């Protein structure tokens, strides 16, 4: 990936490759390539949307970013320092500054903890503040996300999905993070509640200048929150650019398909005859992984997997070979 303009980069991923050995026993160990080449970066106060479908590698990417898994190859750098070189102190700081909110709110909480305890836990683990201060902080966090302080004494199962996500966001904010990883935070919510959470995330971002890594399969919500977008398919980033660039001039056929899916209002009479599944991770085809689904696929596409990025316009990249500058 060509060099970007040097501003303070908070998070950088460079040529991340992640593969797993699958298969059982002493034989038949195959390699499943989950991520083949991921590179992107997020500057301070910037928001990046990662858009892809199930199985594209979005969740694996979050695990690599959060330091839960080490990539097979490639580099993850936070504030310039590679995660592979981190010592205990580095990790302690990293964990305070990089937080996450996940898709399923009810699964994110210990059902036996009251909300108060859930919110105070990050503070007490890091030995921040006295018990009184933590109590006050928990209440102020609730107010920050639009919930009344009296909810602190309730249990997770007493809340609706939208409220739970607010609590999850409050918890993520407890330590004053610089980067928030949001893995499909509104996908499991009702459509009228989605707006509430997206508005909240938007306001918090503007107010606190937190960077977001926002993951979704719905490109429409990404538009609202994100400065730039990376489209991921089958473990590769197939298009990358600012939000305006992607929405106004989508290059890769997959990007176009995603955009269409977001706004189509009528079904055509032309029904596809066969379902196309994502290619096998253990046995990838030699050519472009999108070939089977692609309306403009040619022989050259199937022959070799295009992994070089073509700069379509400044800061806007795509791997599709059909774009000629």
């Amino acid at each position: 990936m060509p060099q970007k303009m040097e501003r303070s980069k908070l998070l950088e991923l460079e040529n991340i490759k992640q593969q797993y050995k699958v298969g059982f026993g002493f034989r038949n160990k195959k390699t499943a390539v989950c991520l083949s080449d991921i590179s992107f970066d997020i500057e301070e106060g910037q928001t990046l949307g990662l858009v892809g479908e199930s199985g594209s590698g979005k969740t694996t990417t979050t695990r690599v970013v959060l330091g839960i898994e080490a990539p097979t190859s490639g580099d993850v750098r936070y504030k310039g320092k590679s995660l592979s070189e981190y010592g205990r102190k580095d990790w302690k700081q990293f964990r305070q500054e990089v937080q996450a909110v996940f898709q399923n709110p009810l699964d994110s909480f210990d059902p036996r903890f009251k909300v108060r305890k859930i919110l105070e836990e990050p503070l007490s683990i890091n030995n921040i503040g006295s018990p009184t201060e933590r109590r006050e902080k928990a209440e102020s966090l609730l107010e920050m996300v639009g919930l009344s302080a009296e909810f602190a004494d309730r249990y997770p199962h007493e809340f609706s999905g939208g409220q739970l996500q607010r609590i999850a966001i409050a918890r993520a904010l407890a330590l004053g993070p610089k980067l928030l990883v949001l893995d499909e935070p509104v996908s499991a919510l009702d459509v009228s509640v989605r707006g509430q959470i997206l508005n909240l995330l938007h306001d918090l971002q503007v107010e606190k200048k937190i960077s977001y890594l926002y993951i979704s399969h719905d490109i429409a919500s990404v538009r609202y929150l994100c400065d730039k977008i990376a489209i991921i398919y089958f473990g590769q980033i197939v298009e990358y650019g600012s939000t305006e660039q992607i929405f106004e001039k989508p290059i890769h056929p997959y990007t176009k398909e995603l955009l269409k899916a977001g706004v189509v209002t009528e079904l055509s009479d032309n029904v596809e005859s066969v379902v196309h599944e994502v290619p096998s991770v253990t046995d990838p085809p030699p050519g472009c992984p999108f070939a089977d689904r692609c309306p403009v696929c040619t022989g050259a596409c199937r022959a070799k997997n295009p992994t070089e990025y073509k700069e379509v316009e400044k800061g806007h990249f795509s791997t599709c070979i059909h774009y000629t500058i």
Partner: protein
Amino acid sequence: MALLEVKDLVTYFPHEKGKVQVVDHVSFTVNERECFGIIGESGCGKSMTATSVMQYHNEVGAKIGGGQILFEGRDVMSFGKKELQDYRGGEVAMIMQNTMSALDPLFTVGDQVAETIRRHTGAGKKEARKRAEEIFTFLGIPADRYKAYPHELSGGMLQRIAGGIAIGSNPKLIIADEPTTALDATVQLQYMQLLKKIQKQTKAAILLISHDIRVIQMMCSRIAVMYAGQIVEEGNTDEIMEHPVHPYTKALLEAANPHALKVDRISTINGQPPFLLNPPATCRFADRCANCTHRCHQQETGLYADNDGGHFHRCILAAEEKERNATENGKIEAFRIREHKAAI
């Protein structure tokens, strides 16, 4: 022409302090070969309505407190065990939301489609298998997937299998309960096209339940909007999309508008639906409604007709305004119909 008639259905969960009324005097009709949609959000009662139609409410701990469910004129609630088993899966088939957890993990997907066929058409093993394979081809599922197990297939593929199970018995009505909710955006589109194809070929009626307006809009000719256990608006899809009357419908359409995300602020509905323990007879949307007046908290709601074309809604203010306009123009009509006491 009416295939399914639900009249004044009341379904509730017994609670120590009373009754949690999840379906509150709901009435609608699904005609033959029509696609009827119910749209609403979590807790509005749409899934419980489907559960009641399938007479499955007992198994989830609910009771039916009143009303009628007529299928082809027959009273479903009076079906005996054998009749009910023939009805379920045979005349009315269901497509569930999350097929990964809705399929038996120990049997192949082909078997599970063939099982339905054998049960309801009396076909033998070989015949059923052949028919199942035909259905696979029809639905665009590769033939080699017949012997696959559920855990080996993707969500989109499994939803197609769910469709196969549903149509195997040539049902007259297919109830699809949030069939696209667990799918990715791109796959959703594919699946809806599939449902449309199913409808065209099998001539079955479809009762489509979803919280996704796009899905409903693309498939259904008539819809009902549910909120807090009641139908708050009902009518032709186009009519409601273009001229929604009830404030909840308006807010919902606004929130779900994909173009809404271009603006600086996403439109949303603040607050949440009420808990349905002994719910009030007055408007249940009042607390969240922008137009709410103090009368909305005092007067009982009913279903009012907006025009002659089968468009009904539950907003007192809108109905009064219409009545005012009509009286001004010299037309004094009775706008109030289908009024009934809600809740107990």
